[in-house]
Structure formats: structure tokens, C-alpha cells
């Protein structure tokens, strides 16, 4: 069977293709075409031979089939502990079989793999901490997603997502003009309350280059304004690039390896162009993982680091509070039970567990912060990670996945959840929408702004 019009092995590279695929509402035709899509078994096997190195090979080989990873997976827990949700089973029955059969698999098998890879694993890497052999099933699922993507077996939304990155270099259709305009608009909008507020674009040699998640200019531009306000109050010399401002990578979750590289190089070239002392990314775990943790490897940087020190927003915030650049008015501290969502993508994947707690020590009245259990690197995924949030086809499964976070939050008794990660934030919002447990959720920026002790000279002059 030939490839479909929408569902095929070719990535979306033009705006035209992108709009056409978007026009196929809910991917109806896309999924219909997928039923007839051929598997290029020779190419699949040669890709495996070229890219599957000793780590993955050994993991598949020596898995002791002991089942110890079962309980570590939140999807196993919330799905009635059915054995089909055991991490080892999920990967052995997909990638394991694909390798055993030397790539000779059919359409039905690939569709089963797709369902498993995107609806039964969020690549949260938690199981990797619990396997005695050090087998990280999340890592292997990321790999499997790449193989599936290259054969066209990828959920419609993620095909579009990586297409967006290819066409606009942003996960949404935000162009350079849109972005720069949004920055100007936000600066004007808030000038009155924050005299002297600026969002400097393309300033060379600033101390900080700030980058964000395309959802911000698209859907919550106030987030950019909030970042600007905090940098302003802290007296930072900062800038945003006109190109290379978007640090997320849906292509990472789609398995579009080529696109991952292209996007991160775009951000790095902004760093080379503007030569800031360091870069700071927004409150987004997935963006941080893409640009700072995985990105250097896609870009082929042998030291595994971005071209300049690149930190997550929580690291900057903790530093600004610690050094007194930002001061909190003690009377405005949070005086209600509050809990914290540890994002897998920068906690389990980069160890940023203590800085967030340090921030809370400044903004929460002692005694009001309740930890989730488990927490830090043992925390569970919010339920919407790895692209799960955005895939309509698996909405029902995603809603079940949210239950673990719901239980964890309910157990704390807190009504306010701080989620310094876009994706976790979205998942917790959806969780409230779905289960109505009466909670509120917030990024750090708006909370901090409300509590700031603003120095006299930065306040608006009274009329």
C-alpha cells in the first residue's frame, strides 16, 4: 500500500502540509490511512543496527524478568496493576520483539507499539531508579518512539507538533514577528505599574538571555511579562533573542531526532550571536530537558553542556532570593497548606530538587509547606508527561493517569499546588477539570510578584 496523504513516513516540512494535516480534524483520515501504511522493514532493521548500541542491547538482553519495576510505574499502579503495564513487559513486547524479529514486523504490530509508546509510558524515567540492573525503560521508550516516528506510526498531534517545530521552530505557530510584537506589547502593557520596565530584544553581551516555551507568547503572554517584572526588580541586565527564543521540543516526544537537533542549534546560535554570560529558561521541565539536558548531545557538543551556562528558572529564582536581589515581604508569605510538584524533567533528570525547596522557604510561612509522598527524584509523573497531555486519541488513558497525582495531592491536604513546569501545570489543571477536587495551581512567577517587597524607586509614582 502506498503512503497516505497525511499519514506517511515524510515529516511535515512546509506550512502548506502543516495546515492540511491540521485541517484533518482529530486526525480522522490520518488514522484511517495509518491502517494501510506499510512498514519498511529493511530500513527499520538497518536503523536499529546503526543506532542501538550496547546500553540498550544489554538492557534488553539481561532484563531478569523479575518484575521489580512493576510497582515503580505510576501507570501500572493506576491501571489496576494489570501485568500489561509492567515496564519490562511494555518494552519487551514492543522494542524487544522488534529486535528479535530483526525488524520484520507488520502494521498491526507497529500500531500496538505506537499505543504502548505514547499511552503506556510518559518517559518519566522513574522505573530506572528501581531496577536492580539499572534498566531505564523510559530511555528505551524514547528510542522506540524514534523508530516509530521514522516509519510514520506516530499520533497525529505529535506529527503536527514536530511539524510545527520544523516549520516555525516553535511548538506553536508563533513567528519571529509574533514573538517580538508580544514582547513589545507586554512591556507596554505593564509599563505603568512598573516604570522603566523593558523587554530588550537582541541585546548583545547581556548578563542573561531568557528563553521560553511557545505556549507563553501564544496563550499566556503574562508569563513573559512576569519574567520581565522579576528581572526588572532584581536589576538584571537581560535580553531575549528574536530568533532562537523557543526552547521546547515536541519533536523530542514525537521521536523526530533530526528536528530536535535543528531546534536546539537554533537556540544555541542565538547564544553565539548575543553572547550573554548565561541563559535562563522558563518554568518548564520539558523545555529544560530539551535545551539543557539532552540538547547538547543532539547538537554534538562533546562536553554535554550548552555553549554558555544554561539554568532553569527555579535556579535563578533561588539565587535571586538568596542574594537579596528579590525580597519577599514577610507579611505576604503563603499562609495556607501548599504542596510542590517535582517535575521529572528537571528533578529526576537533573537533580534540581533542593533549589525549589529553598524558594519555598522564602515564600511560605513555616509549617505550611507539605511534601507530597513520595517526592523529589522519587516523585511520580503528573500523568501528562511525554506528550500524553496533547494526544486526543489517548485522552481516556491520560485521564486515568492523572489519578496518581490526584491521590498524592489529596493526601497532602493542600489546596494550592505549585507547579514550576508547564506540562505539570497543564496536567494539574486538567486534573481539576476532570475530577473537581477543589485545588488551585500556580507557577512561581505570579506568586512571587504578589509577595515582593518592591524598592521605593521601582514603584509607580502616585498622582
Amino acid at each position, binding site marked *: 500500500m502506498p503512503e497516505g496523504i497525511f499519514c506517511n513516513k515524510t515529516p511535515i516540512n512546509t506550512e502548506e502540509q502543516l495546515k492540511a494535516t491540521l485541517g484533518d480534524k482529530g486526525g480522522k483520515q490520518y488514522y484511517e490511512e495509518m491502517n494501510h501504511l506499510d512498514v519498511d522493514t529493511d530500513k527499520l532493521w538497518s536503523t536499529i543496527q546503526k*543506532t542501538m*548500541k*550496547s*546500553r540498550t*542491547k*544489554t*538492557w534488553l*538482553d*539481561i*532484563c*531478569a*524478568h*523479575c*518484575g*521489580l519495576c*512493576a*510497582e*515503580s510505574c505510576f501507570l*501500572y499502579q493506576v491501571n489496576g*496493576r494489570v*501485568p*500489561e503495564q*509492567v515496564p*519490562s*513487559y511494555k518494552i*519487551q513486547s514492543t522494542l524487544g520483539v522488534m529486535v528479535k524479529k530483526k525488524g520484520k514486523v507488520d502494521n498491526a504490530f507497529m500500531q500496538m507499539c505506537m499505543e504502548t509508546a505514547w499511552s503506556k509510558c510518559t518517559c518519566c524515567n522513574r522505573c*530506572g*531508579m*528501581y*531496577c*536492580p*540492573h*539499572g*534498566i*531505564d525503560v523510559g530511555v528505551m521508550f524514547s528510542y522506540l518512539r524514534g523508530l516509530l516516528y521514522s516509519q510514520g506510526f506516530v499520533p497525529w498531534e505529535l506529527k503536527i507538533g514536530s511539524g510545527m517545530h520544523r516549520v516555525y521552530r516553535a511548538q506553536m505557530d508563533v513567528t519571529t514577528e509574533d514573538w517580538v510584537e508580544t514582547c513589545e506589547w507586554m512591556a507596554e502593557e505593564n509599563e505603568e505599574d512598573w516604570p522603566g520596565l523593558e523587554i530588550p530584544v537582541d541585546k548583545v553581551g547581556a548578563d542573561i538571555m531568557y528563553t521560553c516555551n511557545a505556549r507563553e507568547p501564544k496563550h499566556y503572554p503574562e508569563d513573559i511579562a512576569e519574567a520581565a517584572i522579576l528581572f526588572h526588580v532584581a536589576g538584571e541586565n537581560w535580553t531575549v533573542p528574536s530568533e532562537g527564543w523557543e526552547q521546547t521540543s515536541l519533536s523530542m516526544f514525537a521521536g523526530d531526532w533530526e528536528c530536535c537537533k535543528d531546534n536546539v542549534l537554533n537556540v544555541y546560535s542565538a547564544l553565539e550571536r548575543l553572547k550573554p554570560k548565561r541563559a535562563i529558561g522558563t518554568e518548564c521541565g520539558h523545555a529544560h530537558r530539551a535545551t539543557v*539536558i*539532552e540538547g*547538547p*548531545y543532539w547538537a*554534538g557538543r*562533546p*562536553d*554535554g*553542556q550548552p555553549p554558555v551556562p544554561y539554568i532553569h528558572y527555579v535556579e535563578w529564582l533561588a539565587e535571586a532570593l538568596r542574594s537579596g536581589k528579590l525580597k519577599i515581604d514577610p507579611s505576604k508569605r503563603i499562609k495556607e497548606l501548599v504542596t510542590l510538584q517535582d517535575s521529572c524533567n528537571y528533578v*529526576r*533528570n*537533573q*537533580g*534540581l*530538587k*533542593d533549589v525549589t525547596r529553598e524558594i519555598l522557604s522564602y515564600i511560605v510561612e513555616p509549617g505550611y509547606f507539605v511534601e507530597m509522598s513520595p517526592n*523529589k*527524584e*522519587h516523585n511520580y509523573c503528573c500523568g501528562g508527561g511525554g506528550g500524553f497531555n496533547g494526544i486526543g486519541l489517548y485522552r481516556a488513558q491520560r485521564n486515568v493517569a492523572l489519578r496518581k497525582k490526584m491521590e498524592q495531592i489529596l493526601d497532602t491536604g493542600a489546596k494550592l499546588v505549585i507547579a514550576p513546569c508547564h506540562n505539570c501545570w497543564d496536567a494539574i489543571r486538567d486534573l481539576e477539570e476532570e475530577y473537581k477536587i477543589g485545588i488551585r495551581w500556580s507557577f512561581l512567577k505570579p506568586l512571587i510578584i504578589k509577595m515582593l517587597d518592591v524598592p521605593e524607586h521601582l514603584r509607580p509614582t502616585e498622582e
Partner: protein
Amino acid sequence: MYDFLTGPMLWATFIVSFGGLLVRTVMYVKGLNWQLDRVAYRPNMKYGIRGGVRSILAFIIPFKARLWQTRPGFTLLFFAFHIGLLVTPVFLEAHNVMFRNAFGFSLPALPTGVADGLAWVCLVGGLFLLLRRIAFPEVRILTTFYDYLLLVISVMPFITGLIARYEMGNYDFWLAAHIASGEIWLLALPFTKLSHVVLFFMSRMQLGMDYGIKRGGMKGTDMAW
């Protein structure tokens, strides 16, 4: 028969087994790829080694890793089984006699009572590992014939050894069976999943390096395994 099994066959077994394991170790390291694995091994070797050692220690010390704490029953069985499996053959008096004859040196030997005890612990541990494969759905779904076969290959030397030791039945036969099954076990090491005797360390080391380098170590926070 005895002479053959303890003579040329033993030598061949040692060479194939240890040589094979060495090959697997070397191949593992050679097959690592910093860019595909997303770990900058070389430039951050110090962080890597530190993370790797932490990772190995967490899992070879009973009850150290969170996993071992969450499953005390399994942990006991698991360590009993593995300690019995590894310690008994090396420090057994009878094996040491053989060693002395062959190489002219020997290791300190365990008192017979302790050695017997360890062998039994290993057998019972093995039995429970087998039962749990049947009893728990999350393990049953993963288990294949191959897993049972490997378990049998691993405990066979102990079963035959104990029979010979208590002189049940024909001693010479059971002794030969014991030696043969021990050699089968050794030969299986490099070619089967039993290669985890060395690959466990490699895989643990690798993931530990990953955590030590990019997943926290360089941020000054050690991951709590």
C-alpha cells in the same frame, strides 16, 4: 570420567567462561556511544566514576537502595540466593582441595557446617524465586521457558552437590553430575542472561555515570537510589 571433567574439561571451561565474560565486558564498553546514550563519559569522568560507584554500591549492599527497602522479603531471598551462589563454590573445602592440586594454592575454606547452610539457603532462595514467578501476575507475564531453564542451570550444581555431599545414591555418579553441572553453569555464563555476573556491573556503572554526570551529579545533588 572424573579425570576428564576435572582435567582438560575444567581448563576448557575456565577459558571459555572467563574469556567469554571478558569479551562481553570489553564489547560493552566499546559499544557505548556518548551521543546516542547522551552521556559525556570522557570529559566528565570524575563525576561519572563517582556516580557509577554510588550506583553499584546502592544495589549490592542489602537494604541500601530504595528498592531494597520497599521489598524486604524479596531482598532477603535475593541476597541469600546470590550470596549462596557466589560464596559457596569459591570457599568450599572440597573445591579448594582441587584448586591446590591444580594450581598449587588455595583460598581459606568455610567450615563445613556454614558451607552446607549456604548451599541450603541458596536452594531455598532459588525455590522461592521460582515460586514467585508462578505466583505473581506481574512476574508471570515476563517469565519465559528460558528463565526457568537458567534458574535450573544455576541451582543444579547445588542439588547434585548436596546429594553427593550426603552420599545419597551412587557417590561417583553424583560427583560427576555435580562437576558437569557446575561446568555447564560456567559455560552458560558468557552466552546467556547469566552474563549479568559482569554486565550487571557495567549497566549499573553506566546508569550511575548518567546520573552522576547529567542527571544531578554536576548540580551537586546526589540522586537517592
